[in-house]
């Protein structure tokens, strides 16, 4: 019995929920939100597996990598948001071409 198993399972489920959201939604901002859920699911899975292997707290190396990941995720979120706002201003009909650009941008930064 290890206390971090619930969190590892939670992370696994969050990855699934996030990926569903990225695929199922039309609206770019909905995809952005789902992308953030996927990201934190991956981090939670990663961190709790480290806690699981050490039998205690999350190790220093995973923690450092996760902090790096969180900062990169917020930077890419801000950039995608800038793109979406500009896209709206240009009055391009968002779904078809915009959807493609937006989502490939997420994938580049997904850890």
């Amino acid at each position, binding site marked *: 019995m290890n*206390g*971090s*198993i*619930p*969190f*590892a*399972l*939670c*992370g*696994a*489920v*969050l*990855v*699934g*929920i*996030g*990926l*569903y*959201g990225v*695929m*199922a939604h*039309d609206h770019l*901002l*909905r995809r952005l*939100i*789902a992308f*953030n*859920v996927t990201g*934190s*699911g991956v*981090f*939670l899975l990663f*961190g709790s597996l480290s*806690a699981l*292997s*050490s039998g205690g707290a*999350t*190790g*220093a*190396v995973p*923690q*450092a990598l*996760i*902090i*790096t990941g*969180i*900062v*990169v995720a*917020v*930077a890419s*979120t*801000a*950039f995608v*948001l*800038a*793109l*979406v*706002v*500009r896209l709206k201003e240009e009055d391009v009909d968002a779904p078809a071409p915009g959807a493609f650009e937006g989502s490939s941008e997420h994938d580049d*930064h997904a850890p």
Partner: protein
Amino acid sequence: MAPAFSALTLFDVVLCVLIIGVALCSSSVRDLFAATVLLIIYGVFVAIAWVRLGAVDVALAEAAIGAGLTGVLLIGAVARLKITESPAAAVSRWQFAAKVIPASLGLLIASGLAYLVLTVEWRETLQAPVLANLPDTGVLNPVTAVLLNYRAYDTLLETSVLFAALIASWCTTHDDLWGERAGLRQHTRRAGILATFGRFLPPIGLIVGIHIFWAGADKWGGAFQAGTIFAAVWILAIMAGVIDAPNATGRSIRSFAVAGPMFFTFVALTGVLAQSFLIIPVMVAKPLTLAIEACLTLSIAATLMLLVLGAPRRSA
């Protein structure tokens, strides 16, 4: 048979269920604004999960970014949109498939990961070598040691990613607006509640940020967490109309934004003269690490602040 066991486990399980519930609601609710608000709540509880996992450094970053900055970023953009309901489209067979296929893929991936969690024996960690070499790094917080010493490569590249994201978001500026202040022109009622709040909170935020920065060398926290806090109170002061938003063409704000990556690269290159790229000599490890950290904190604060404000815009 410690009685504390059950209360702690109960809390963890309820917390996990709540996090999953918030994520599910956020991805299924029709209203976009509600989905955004749910993401903020989600950030608060993920931070609590990190505390329970003993990862205080990550919890600090998640609390500052997930519950603070991401919220400001998304709410600002979403609240400006006029229509936020997804249209109630007629349910055709194709639309049904467009939900079912992603749902089954998501379920497949989640259950695959869960299977791995439950079956694979996870044994090896890098914690022992990290702690064994800690005296050579000049800091006592193992996470800071990994970020600025063992894996300094990652951190150097990460600050470059931040910088690249800033340049890329500047590229979305309208040609005729380039050279104006970032974001919209903010205004508030003089001596109103918002303006007073914007005067009160930043000094407190500065103290908390410096505390987190200082504690980062020896205990917990560090450049990223402190930088995010500084960015957040900077943005608050701008939103409250206390100070003006910076101009992307300004000298001083640009030097803030590049100070961290520049100094880091400089240290990395001087290491080449001594031994090899990115070597931090043991003798000067503590002052050098603190100097790098200070520059990084400034750069992260300036870059995140500019990223959240976005390109210059004219009010509608």
